């Protein structure tokens, strides 16, 4: 019988740790002007990215993130055994449509804003299990397509609520391999759905905070670690309000994140009033990881990082039917070079 790679209640710890040999991030103009600007591999001057619809623009950014990540590792599409990708649109079309041009075995996933880490965890499991030599995880989002999908088309001119978050226009991709040099994925903790009864779709940070707390606690327990064992615990995209809620919930459990916790929702933009509570979207933690964290891990500036991406799993229909917002958070721990 195979020796299990499970540890504790819900964590996979990889014996042969998959290497993240490459990562790339593509974004729109607003993200390019933000604090992460210099870290992006490609910045578009406008949100249409040379296409005639925002949906096509998002798909193009996703495809280019994958292509640039492969090119940086001197790999071609044929070298990749699996592509995990997802986005926020109905039927995850931004991902499916990029897949038709890449010719890589495609596994579409949906975890809302947790998609990137869900993809990295699944890709790592296939690589570590010997089912793939190389696998790519990618995720994308676009402010204007997400507004149309979840709220109102932007041309409607809807007034944004102060608790709302600004969806990142951008895509990130990471290439995982069973050999090579780079940061290594040590473990993967899949999240359980949490629902504390938040019904306001303009306050996803509060809805997602309990999922972040649940996954973080189970990961730390499974690994017999505390927050201080990590150089960085990066949550994906709780935003300003969600981060405050999460820290409050953790304090009740006696866990203090002071000094180690950052939220990717607060790293993408200068925090102007228009941004409200912070950044969000599948592209948020995907671009923060590819444009910043992966580079710092590769340079040895960070030794051990925990990425926890949260996703709000509602739809406009469920909100109109007054359903509360279920949320999930997936965690991946990564070791620096």
């Amino acid at each position, binding site marked *: 019988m195979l020796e299990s790679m499970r540890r504790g209640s819900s964590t996979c710890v990889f014996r042969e740790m998959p290497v993240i040999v490459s990562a790339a991030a593509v974004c729109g103009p607003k993200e390019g002007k933000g604090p992460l600007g210099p870290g992006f591999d490609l910045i578009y001057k406008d949100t249409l990215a040379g296409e005639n619809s*925002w949906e096509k623009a998002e798909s193009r950014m996703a495809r280019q993130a994958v292509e640039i990540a492969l090119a940086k590792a001197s790999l071609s599409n044929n070298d990749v055994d699996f592509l995990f990708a997802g986005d926020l649109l109905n039927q995850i079309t931004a991902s499916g449509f990029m897949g038709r041009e890449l010719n890589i075995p495609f596994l579409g996933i949906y975890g809302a804003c947790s998609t990137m880490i869900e993809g990295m965890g699944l890709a790592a499991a296939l690589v570590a299990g010997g089912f793939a030599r190389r696998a790519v995880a990618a995720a994308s989002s676009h402010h204007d397509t997400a507004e149309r999908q979840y709220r109102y*088309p932007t041309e409607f001119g809807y007034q944004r609520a102060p608790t709302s978050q600004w969806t990142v226009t951008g895509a990130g991709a990471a290439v995982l391999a069973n050999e090579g040099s780079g940061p290594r994925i040590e473990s993967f903790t899949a999240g359980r759905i949490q629902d504390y009864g938040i019904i306001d779709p303009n306050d996803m940070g509060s809805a997602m905070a309990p999922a972040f707390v649940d996954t973080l606690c189970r990961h730390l327990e499974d690994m017999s670690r505390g927050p201080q064992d990590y150089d960085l615990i990066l949550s994906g995209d709780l935003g300003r309000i969600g981060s405050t809620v999460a820290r409050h919930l953790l304090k009740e459990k006696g866990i203090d994140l002071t000094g180690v916790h950052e939220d990717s929702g607060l790293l993408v933009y200068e925090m102007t009033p228009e941004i409200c509570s912070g950044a969000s979207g599948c592209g948020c933690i995907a671009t923060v990881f590819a444009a910043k964290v992966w580079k710092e891990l590769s340079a040895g500036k960070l030794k051990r990082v925990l990425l926890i991406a949260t996703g709000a799993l509602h739809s406009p229909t469920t909100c109109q039917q007054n359903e509360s917002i279920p949320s999930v958070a997936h965690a991946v721990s990564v070791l620096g070079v």
Partner: protein
Amino acid sequence: MTLVRAFLVGGLLCGLAQLILDTTKANPAIIMVSAVSVGAVLSGLGLYGPLVTLGGAGATIPLTGFGHLLVTGMVEDATRSGLFGILTGGFRAASAALMAAIIFGYLMSVLFNPKG
């Protein structure tokens, strides 16, 4: 003076809607439908007419004014041709507003592309 009165009445109506949007969970669709309904009810009670006399366009252009227009038309037609007028009057009175919304909405969507 007409301009000042229109500004004050129109501003007051829109300010109220903004307060509801900011302080409650009501979404824009609910507020718009409620505004039309409130205007219609006030009109039926004879309270919106004096507001139009006072504020002019400041009272007729906000959505409450649309509710008032529908009810005014219904009452007019009902007076002229009996109960059947309730069915015809609303849209007859509001026909210009509705056609303008359709025509200008169509023109704008043909002429311009959203920039996000």
